[in-house]
């Protein structure tokens, strides 16, 4: 599904990813953990196509395509989804209108007919249950005045509607209380279908109790320094990142 090789990327002359490798197969859930500043969010932004980041080396294959050659919207149309760590507020565009534009852009890219208002509404009604999103939030401007939890649910709701092949969750757990965390995790789990892949980026092990990964990778200073199964997350919870950071420096 996704294969990243020797990726080097940075912003404003500062290299952040320093030779990053990762391979994710269909239906797999991978978690990336790491201390602050290790490059977790940079990875998410680079994969989604944020133009501020400069890529100096490496390759990214997504579902047989050269991902780095695609514009952000083409990546989304190809089935890549990023749940933002800080979802953006857009005053003046309703959540529904925004989502309809997104759904129909993706459909158009695949040569499918656009959904009309009735069909779209049906889709929304079905998906809104996945994350227990309050109906009233659909009519409100995108993320404007939403609580932290509502914003994160809205991300997962968008994911449910867009049905990507692969989703990257960038610190979706940050700022969530335990109830919201469960709701969001349940939403993600309900979207697991054996084909859809997930890359879960997080600082804490907590989220991984609810979204159980197949593989856990530790990112330190722009590179993966250790990979393992879900038990690695527990080890990190106990021992912190310090020992891996020291190992990486040797």
């Amino acid at each position, binding site marked *: 599904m996704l294969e990243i090789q020797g990726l080097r990327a940075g912003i404003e002359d500062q290299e952040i990813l320093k030779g990053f490798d990762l391979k994710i197969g269909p239906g797999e859930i991978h978690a990336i953990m790491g201390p602050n500043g290790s490059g977790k969010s940079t990875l998410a932004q680079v994969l*989604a196509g944020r133009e501020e980041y400069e890529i100096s080396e490496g390759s990214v294959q997504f579902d047989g395509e050269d991902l780095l050659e695609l514009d*952000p919207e083409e990546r989304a149309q190809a089935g890549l989804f*990023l749940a933002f760590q800080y979802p*953006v*507020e*857009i005053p003046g*565009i309703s959540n529904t209108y925004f989502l309809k534009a*997104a759904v129909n852009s993706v459909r158009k890219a695949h040569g499918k007919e656009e959904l009309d208002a009735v069909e779209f509404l049906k889709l929304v009604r079905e998906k809104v249950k996945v994350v227990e999103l309050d109906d009233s939030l659909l009519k409100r401007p995108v993320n404007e005045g939403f609580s932290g939890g509502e914003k994160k649910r809205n991300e997962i709701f968008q994911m449910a509607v867009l049905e990507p092949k692969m989703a990257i969750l960038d610190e979706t757990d940050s700022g969530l209380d335990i109830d919201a965390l469960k709701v969001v995790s349940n939403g993600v789990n309900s979207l697991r279908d054996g084909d859809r892949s997930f890359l879960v980026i997080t600082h804490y092990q907590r989220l991984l109790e609810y979204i159980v990964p197949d593989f856990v990778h530790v990112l330190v200073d722009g590179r993966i320094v250790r990979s393992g199964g879900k038990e690695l997350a527990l080890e990190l919870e106990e021992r912190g990142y310090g020992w891996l950071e020291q190992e990486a420096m040797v």
Partner: protein
Amino acid sequence: MSSATLPDKAAGLAAYEELFSASERTGESEGVSDLRRSALDRFLKQGFPTRRDEEWRQTNVAPIAKSQFARGTGGSVTPSAELYDGCDHMVFVDGRLEIGLSAVPEGVDIRPLSEALVEGLPLGDLVPEEGHPFAAMNTALFEDGLYVHVSEKAQMVRPLQVHFESTGQTTQGVSAVSFPRNLIVVERGGEGRVIETYSGAQGRAYMTNAVTEMHLGENATLRHVKVMQEGDASYHMALQSIRLERSANLHSIAVNQGGSLVRNDLRSLLDGEDIDCVLNGLVLGNEQRIVDNHLWMEHAKPNCYSHQLYKGVLADRSRAVFTGRIFVHQEAQKTDAVQTNRNLLLSEAAIANSNPQLEIFADDVKCTHGSTIGQLEDDAHFYLRSRGVDADVAKGLLVYAFASEILQEIDLEPLRDSLERILVHELASGV
């Protein structure tokens, strides 16, 4: 240099005197003739404003002063703007009536102004003698326009659209000019709904010089929209002057889309207590368009509310000027006045000038003003694209999101839909 321009200037002004002499005005009352004559004298005395005049500092009208104008050829042409469903229509071409009304609702008098010029009409009452040379020119030379009189407690159920079309053509081969003149009177407790639209030929340097006066009696309501979609090479100079009495309610929206040089003066005199006065506007600029809006909100009595929200979306090398003055008399305690000007620049070369001016002589008032000039937010643009929305469409959506706030308040659906379409398609794809 000055010795060469002076005779030119005099020659330029003399042309307007000729235009005045050549006008046919049979059947006009003596009062109206006097009004015209003195306005002409005022205009000839003042001449065209220059950038040395404080009120014209940011807008250069030299292209107009240097041009030669004659009245347009008129005639029956298909309007270049939409005539909206759901309302009655009156159409003027080059200042002269082409399509009149077949029926008029009870309690309301709607007719061409030229048929209403009787003694006692409050024509020109709201046009200040000083500082408005183009309005003086209009008073001297106006052909015709809309006259609406809503009697006490009467209602205009259907809105009226009055459309001014400019052909931009003259028989003399010079630039065309027209002088639309509108007078709207809503008596005590009456309700009026008027949409003014202006459009014309592309590529022709014609001028529209319009004046609209509005009188709102006690408890009167007027919902007003002005849609300016003039041709891309044209000049549009306008004065909209309003007087409101106790508890009157005005809601006026101006949408400025076309023209190469546009100047709107809006004056509102809140001359009674408990008035609610809203003057909102949207400026869509592209190419080298200059749109200059001067608003004057005068609170003369206590307990009134006024609101000005002007937004500009500026592409290419376009420029918007907003000068908003709130003037609060000593007597006007408990005034609540809000003024906001927001501009979105879509290109490096677009410019917005924002000049809020508060003059407050009362001590117990709430006056706020705010102005912002910014660019499209990268974060929001990327967020939309990351969901699969094409870069251009995303840009269009964000422009729409910024500007639609003004259009949301238009209650005639066909008009609102039409303006939203323009916003989404034409503007967004052109930037």
